[in-house]
């Protein structure tokens, strides 16, 4: 059993509902985002392609992050889900450097969503339901609490909404699928096989569990610290010299 996800870029419209829903589902504090959309352009006017890649932790089969964690906080379950035990995390961030996909977030300080106006009830509820300590690393957990609770009730992740990751059920274009990659008859396995879905930057060698239909393996969006061009959407990187993507691709 290995949980995996397929994202169909032919259907995805890049609306970011997945990112917002993930944020809501886990009561993520300000400054922490587990699900993002990376955007870039290739080509030259008027023959241009816009690339939109919704990204999250890939829950790699052979993750780089678990190998570098000094405390064992970052760990992998038998079903493939990689998660961080925040009680063990010391915030050294070696995992963030080692992750080829920059999937992780570091919670540096508590900040109000409405600065100067106190924490809202929503934020207070979040600290009870999904507490996240300052000074730890966190990331997408494939909504493992939904999966685990769902299985206890006899529900099937990827089929029954309640047991399926929030980003999958919220997608208005129905572009996301979830299921067992080790089951050749599962919907995700069939989609990967029939539609030629790819893993991003397979060359990193971590064997991601997230696949993209209509994607490019060497997608011109994935960020990496090892020198490959960067075109992220965060303002600091977008306007960095030579990192516009669009100019470099003429």
């Amino acid at each position, binding site marked *: 059993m290995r949980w995996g996800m397929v994202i*169909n870029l*032919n*259907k*995805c*419209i*890049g*609306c*970011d*509902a997945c*990112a*917002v*829903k993930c*944020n*809501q*589902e886990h009561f993520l504090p*300000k400054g922490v*985002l587990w699900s*993002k*959309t990376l*955007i870039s*352009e290739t*080509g*030259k*006017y*008027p023959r*241009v392609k*816009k690339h*939109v890649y919704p990204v999250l932790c890939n829950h790699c089969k052979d993750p780089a992050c678990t190998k570098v964690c000094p405390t064992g906080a970052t760990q992998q379950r038998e079903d493939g889900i990689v998660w961080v035990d925040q009680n063990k995390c010391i915030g050294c961030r070696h995992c963030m450097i080692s992750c080829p996909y920059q999937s992780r977030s570091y919670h540096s300080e508590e900040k109000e*969503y*409405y*600065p100067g*106006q*106190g924490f*809202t*009830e*929503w934020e207070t*509820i979040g600290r009870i*339901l999904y507490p996240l300590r300052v000074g730890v690393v966190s990331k997408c957990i494939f909504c493992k609490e939904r999966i685990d609770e769902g299985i206890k009730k006899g529900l099937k992740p990827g089929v029954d*909404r309640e047991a399926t990751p929030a980003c999958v*059920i*919220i*997608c*208005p*274009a*129905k*572009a996301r699928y979830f299921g067992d990659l080790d089951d050749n008859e599962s919907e995700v396995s069939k989609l990967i096989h029939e539609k030629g879905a790819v893993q991003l930057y397979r060359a990193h060698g971590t064997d991601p569990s997230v696949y993209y239909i209509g994607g490019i393996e060497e997608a011109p969006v994935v960020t990496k610290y090892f020198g490959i061009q960067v075109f*992220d*959407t*965060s*303002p600091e990187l*977008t*306007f960095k*010299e030579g990192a*516009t993507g*669009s*100019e470099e691709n*003429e």
Partner: protein
Amino acid sequence: MNIVEKDRERYREIFGERDKQKDYWVYSICSLCYGECAIRVRVVDGRPVAVEGVPESDRGAQGGLCGKGVAALLDFYDPNRILYPVKRTNPRKGIHEDPKWQRISWEEALDTIAEKLVAAMKKDPRTVCSSYTPGPTGGMRGNVTWRRFFQALGGSRALGGPGIMCGGAAHHVGALQYAAWDIIPDYRFCNYVLRCGGAESWASGRNSRASVRQAAAARERGMKLKVMDPQGFTVASLGREWIPILPATDIAVFLAIGNLIVNEIGIYDKEYIRHKTNGVYLIGPDRLYVREKQTGKPLFFDEADGNVKTYDDPTLTQPAIEGKYIANGVECRPAFALVKDHLKQYKPDWASEISTVPADTIRRLARELVDEARIGSVIEIDGVKVPYRPACVVGYKGMQTHQNSFHAYTAMHLINVLLGNQDVCGGILGSGVPRSLGYPETGRFQFSPYGGVEGMLTVGPWPISTGGSMSWPPSKVTGPGNSWSFNDVLGHATLDVYTEDWEELWSNAGSPFKPEVFGTYGGNVVMNIVRPESAEKFLRKVPFAFALQPFHNETTEGFCDIVLPESHYLETLDVCSAFGVTYNYPTGLDKWSMHLRMPVTEPRGEARHAQDVMNDLADRVGIRRKYNAALDDFYTFRKARQPNPNVEIPRIIEPEEEVSNIEMVDRILKYHFGEKRGLERFRDNGFLTWNKKPEEAYWRWFINARIPIYFENHEEDREEIKKRAEKIGFHLNWDYFTGLTSYFPSVIFTELPADSEYDLFVISQRDSLMTYRFTAHNPHIDKVASRNPYTYNINMNVGTGREKGIRDGDTICLENHWGDKVTGTVKLSQLVHPKVVAICGLGSWAKGAPISRGKGVNPNALIRQDQHHFCIISSSVEPTVRVKAYKIKETR
């Protein structure tokens, strides 16, 4: 017990037990755009904690939802919510003024408002003006709860309310040709869509997530999407082809395509023209219908027996669409023959020169449309045969909102007429669904378009009275003197009070009345329409202004004397988002899906439901009888054409009744769906669905009605309009009032020379997470949207930036020829036409919306409207403006 207390008591009777549960789901309707998708909300310990779509419903994405709808949960907890009535203590009004709010009681607030309304009504009810828009939590309440109050009072509408891209031509032509508010492709069966300016199926608006879902499935199935748009980073990014075009020039491309189809390719749906349009009405040398002398009925030539007949002759079989005939001793031709000849002048090379779309592309698109449309084919659905035309041209917002909008939009729909794809399988459908044969168990909830005056298509589902009739028959000119917006002079078009020349025109008309009270609901008129300074000119003159809002914005802070706290939509019970005018009935063969906006909890603080507030005001002002009648007419569909005339239409609300909101909702539901399906049933089961019939989804060939492709009423009314309008100072190109859809360049190409230094065209574009400006105030939306390179920036073509020495991240100024300026950060992109600058409309400053302050740019600040910058037939404002761009600060 007053009405509000009565409502709360009844709420507790119905929802009290539910609210005591620890963990429950509530079915409701989202309000973060006017798509109004179905939602369900999880409530734990009385607090909403999660929002998603409704999997079993076709109203929306069948379980999915957009980021705005999800994020809206945080608005419920927003510390900036207005939770009690406030009054202004700073007597100065103006943009950027601090109102210095003081908290007051509801009694004081309502007493004050009522006193002002009564005083104004005594002078002249028209001095009470209102605006509304389906705002951030207003849903369709603006159109029903708010607007009908002011109509009952005899007030007038001013300052629009809807945003600058609102569809003047879309709604006007939608009513004339589709008996509907707007249009949408039949994605379930469509194979080819040429989309022009408009982000439906990507961003928000009517049918929001339903169209995303439908279009995504269609693309997966192989539907070809081609997008003709000045920018390519929104919906064009989903398509197979992006065709860049200069703004406001689509009209040239459409006319050229029409010419190619009719006069070169020669394949078009003649039967559709023959039986479904006024292309067969005989036109004389005076360009008017030739009419039977005794009855005045328009005449056709019947090819079957060679006779001239009235349009309603039961023996009429094969009306001619071409040829020359003699009727009443006059030589005449069918209107389509005139259309066909008229199109000959519009050549692809000419259109290319104007639009920058290559002529070969125009030729190819014409050919593709004809090939894909399968003219003549038929499909059987549930045993019912309907025409099958799986190709269409669709456009909205950016394409149709221009100074030449009526002709641009009818030029586009002429192509659809030629393909015969209107309201048939695979083609273009009217949205909201114009025809319902009734809820199966009661027979109510029925409405249908029909052939009305002179056999022309007339709207069935909703009473149209938005400042000049949009539906058939057209209203006659009677003014000036009755309307701020001069629609009593111009026929359909409304020139709003914020224009640069309105004062002069109004003065020339004798200044029939002046504003005493202004009421605003839902939207943000200061920011939404033209430059804020223009709205300020009018609003400063209004002695008293009030608003009903859940959040402050630039309008309330700058100009309102009293603001009443409206309940957040998660606290609101309302039925008008489900009924009547809504354009969100699921389209095509998607099931009828009846939802209700249901509260997850009681309103916080002192916030109240809009319906309760307006009922209370109606009592205080003494218009309850008329208000009840207006609401009753609306909810019973009394004025709708009933396909089954035997269904009784009793009252839901008696004239003098002091009915509360919650009681009214219960009655409306039971009225349409039966005694067992009132509020309690919806509370327990969430919603109601039933199958749609092909005769409803694809009604066109089941109704005997014709649409105009020749606008004879324009020929007839031109001189009268011109006479009345010129008398008060309108000096316009009256040739716009022509029967034949024609090329008129937008004023943006004629007001400045081609080599002007103002060499760029600013367009406004929608963003998937930003629909109303209000959405920038939501921290969850902002958190994600700030990562999108196109959202908060000024988007400019890479090559253009290079020519001007502008680099990514520079701060630039855009300045128009009137000297108005905006500044912002540049994002260079390959997905923008070289002559275009694309901006998502933001740029707020309201103190009550701190998260959005200073984010993004307000492109509306560059727009000045006057009589030369709006469409004199359909009211569309010209939202594109020419600017020069220069750097004011480097990024490094």
